[in-house]
C-alpha cells in the first residue's frame, strides 16, 4: 500500500467544506510558512523535496520557482493550471472536486513563497461545476481569514480567484493560458521571455499544475527531505494516475513513484487487470501526447528491466522503445482496439485543438488526420504510411509550443510499433468496413496476412 499525501483525506465525509477540512488539519502549512518560515525557506523545502511538475513536463518545481524575477519590482503572480484537457487525464478534477481546500491551501503557501499578492486558478470551462465548488471554497477561505489583507496578522496580503476557460486544449500550455487569462485567444507566446520574467500582464509569473501545488502543504508540514524519501531516484513523492480504457477498475489512484507497471496494472489494489480478461494490446502511460507502447514493452523495457512508474523508467530506451510518464493519463487498450482508428482519433483531436498559429501544426495536423481517415476507411494508398511518417517529422520541433510534438508523437509511435496493422488496412480494405472489425477478427488472427506478403 502506497503512501497517501494528496488523497489521504479524500474519503472523509464533508471534506469538501472548510469546516471539516480545517478539523482534519487543513491550513497548517499556511500557519507554519507565514509565522515561522521566510519565503526563501519555503522555496528551499520544495527544492529539497525533488517535486517535479505534475502537469506532464516534469520540470523541478523548486527550480522553476527560483527563476521568478524578484528584482523588477513588478507585481508577481502564481497561476494554477487547472486546464486539464489531455485525453486520458482527469486527475486534477478529482482533487478539485473532492478536496478543493487542499489546492487553495497550496496556492496560499506557494504564493507566499513566491511573493505574490494576486493569484489565479485557471480551470477548463467544461468543469463548470468544479468551478462553482472552487468559488465557494475560496469564499470560505476568505471568510475564515486565510485570504485577503493581513493574513494571520502577519502583514501578508493575498487575493485568489478562479477563472474559467472556454474549451480550448491549447490553453493548457502555460503562455497560451496566460493569454487566455488576459481575455484573449489562447495563442502561445514565443519564449523567451519566459513567464518567470514576463508572464501575466507582463509581470513575473509562475504557472504550476494543480497536483504540484496541492503537494506543497504536505512538503511544508513534513519537510522536503521526508517527501524525497518517497519514490525512487529523481522521481520523488507520490503521483496521481488517472486510468481509463479497457482495465477492470478505471479511476484516479495515488501511487508512490517507483511502483512497477505490472503491479499497477494487475493488482486488485489498483486496476485489477484487463476488463473481460481480454489480452492487453497496447498502453499509453502518460496522456495522449506520449508514445503508445505495445504489449511486449509495457512491463519490461527493451533492456529487460522491470518497467516502473517513474519519469526515468517509462522513458527508458527513448522513443524507440519507451514512452513518458507525462501527466499520468494511463490508457489501456485490449486486443479489440484498432490502432489505426485510435491513431486517427488522436489526430482528429490535435487537429481540432491546434490554435492555428504555426503552419506546420495548423496544416500538418489536418493533413495527418486526413491521411489516417482514408487509411482507416479503406481508401489508403501504399505510400500513405511513409507520407504520415514524413508529415509528423516535419511538425515535431517546428512549432512555438509543444502541441506540434504532441500531435506528432502518437502517430510516429503507432507506425513504429504497429506498422503491420497500417499495412493491413491499406492492403485489405474489404476487411475494415466497420468500426469493430477487430472484435470480429482479432488482430492476432489476421496479422499473418501482412507477414505472408512481406515474406
Amino acid at each position, binding site marked *: 500500500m502506497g503512501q497517501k499525501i494528496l488523497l489521504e483525506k479524500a474519503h472523509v465525509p*464533508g471534506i*469538501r*467544506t472548510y469546516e471539516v477540512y480545517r478539523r482534519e488539519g487543513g491550513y497548517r502549512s499556511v500557519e507554519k510558512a507565514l509565522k515561522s518560515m521566510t519565503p526563501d525557506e519555503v522555496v528551499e523545502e520544495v527544492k529539497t523535496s525533488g517535486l517535479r511538475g505534475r502537469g506532464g513536463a516534469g520540470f523541478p518545481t523548486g527550480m522553476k520557482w527560483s527563476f521568478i524575477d524578484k528584482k523588477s519590482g513588478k507585481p508577481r503572480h502564481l497561476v494554477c493550471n487547472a486546464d*486539464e*484537457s*489531455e*485525453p*486520458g*487525464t*482527469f486527475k486534477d*478534477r478529482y482533487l478539485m472536486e473532492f478536496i478543493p481546500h487542499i489546492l487553495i491551501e497550496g496556492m496560499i503557501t506557494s504564493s507566499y513563497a513566491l511573493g505574490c499578492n*494576486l493569484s489565479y486558478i485557471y480551470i*477548463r*470551462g*467544461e*468543469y*463548470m*461545476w468544479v468551478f*462553482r*465548488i472552487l*468559488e*465557494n471554497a475560496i469564499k470560505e477561505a476568505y471568510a475564515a481569514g486565510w485570504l485577503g489583507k493581513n493574513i494571520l496578522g502577519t502583514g501578508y496580503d493575498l487575493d485568489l*480567484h478562479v*477563472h*474559467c*476557460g*472556454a*474549451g*480550448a*486544449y491549447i490553453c493548457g500550455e502555460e503562455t497560451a493560458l496566460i493569454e*487566455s*487569462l*488576459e*481575455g*484573449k*485567444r*489562447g495563442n502561445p507566446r514565443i519564449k523567451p521571455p519566459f513567464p518567470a520574467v514576463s508572464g501575466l*500582464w507582463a509581470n513575473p509569473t509562475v504557472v504550476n499544475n494543480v497536483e504540484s501545488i496541492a503537494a506543497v502543504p504536505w512538503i511544508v508540514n513534513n519537510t522536503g527531505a521526508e517527501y524525497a524519501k518517497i519514490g525512487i531516484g529523481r522521481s520523488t513523492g507520490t503521483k496521481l494516475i*488517472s*486510468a*481509463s*480504457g*479497457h482495465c477492470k477498475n*478505471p*479511476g*484516479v489512484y495515488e501511487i508512490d513513484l517507483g511502483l512497477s507497471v505490472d503491479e499497477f496494472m494487475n493488482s486488485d489494489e489498483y486496476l485489477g487487470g484487463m476488463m473481460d480478461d481480454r489480452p492487453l494490446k497496447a498502453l499509453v502511460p502518460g496522456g*495522449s501526447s506520449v508514445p503508445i507502447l505495445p504489449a511486449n514493452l509495457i512491463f519490461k523495457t527493451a533492456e529487460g528491466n522491470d518497467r516502473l512508474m517513474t519519469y526515468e523508467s517509462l522513458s527508458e530506451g527513448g522513443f524507440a522503445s519507451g514512452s513518458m510518464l507525462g501527466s499520468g*493519463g494511463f*490508457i489501456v*487498450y485490449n486486443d479489440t*482496439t484498432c490502432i489505426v*482508428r*485510435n491513431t486517427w*482519433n*488522436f489526430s482528429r*483531436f490535435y487537429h*481540432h*485543438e491546434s*490554435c492555428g498559429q504555426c503552419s506546420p501544426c495548423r496544416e500538418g495536423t489536418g493533413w495527418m488526420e486526413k491521411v489516417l481517415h482514408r487509411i482507416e476507411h479503406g481508401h489508403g494508398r501504399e505510400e500513405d504510411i511513409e507520407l504520415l511518417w514524413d508529415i509528423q517529422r516535419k511538425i515535431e520541433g517546428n512549432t512555438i509550443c509543444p502541441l506540434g510534438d504532441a500531435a506528432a508523437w502518437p502517430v510516429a509511435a503507432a507506425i513504429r510499433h504497429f506498422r503491420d496493422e497500417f499495412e493491413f488496412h491499406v492492403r485489405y480494405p474489404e476487411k475494415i468496413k466497420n*468500426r469493430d472489425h477487430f472484435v470480429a477478427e482479432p488482430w492476432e488472427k489476421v496479422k499473418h496476412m501482412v507477414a505472408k506478403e512481406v515474406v
Partner: protein
Amino acid sequence: MEISNVHQEINFTEALLNRIAELISHYPEDKRKAALLPVLHEVQDAHNNWLSIPLQDKVAEMLEIQPIEVYEVVSFYTMFNQKPIGKYMFEFCRTSCCAVRGAEDLMDYTCNKLGVQEGEVTPDGMFQVVGVECLGACGYAPMMQLGDYYKEHLTKEKVDAIIDDCRAGKIDLHKQAITE
C-alpha cells in the same frame, strides 16, 4: 466568422449585472478585459446559450473594449455558440478513451432515437447531439456534457432516462453554488 441573423432578446437582469460586476472585481482595475471569458459564460447562460453580435457588442461596451476583441474570442473557444442551439445539447465525448468504451455507438443510438444527424437540432428545438473532443472524464466513459453537468458511465437506458427528464423539464442546465 459565423454570423447568425436570428434575433436575440437581450436582457441584463439585476442579478446578471451584479454577477458581472463581481467577476470584473477579480482583476486589476486597468485589466477589465481579463474578465471577458467568465463574463461571456454568464451572459451566454442567461441568453439561451448563444451569443448574437448585438449581445457581444454589449459585452464589449461593459468591459470597455473594442467589439472585435470580443468577436475574436467568441470565435476561438468552442464553448461559445454563435448561433441558436438546441435547448438540450448532448455533447458526447468521442476521444479515444470514450471511443473504446462505446461512445460512438451510444451517440448513434441517441441520434437515431431523436431522429437527427450529428449536429442537427430536432424540429421542436429541444435537442441537439454533437460529438466533442476530450472532456476529461476518461475513467467514467462513455459520457456526455449537458449544460454544466457531466453524465457519466452512460448506457442506452441512462440516455433514455435523460431524454425523458429533459422532456419533463426536470433538468437544470446551469448549476448553482455547491456548498457540501
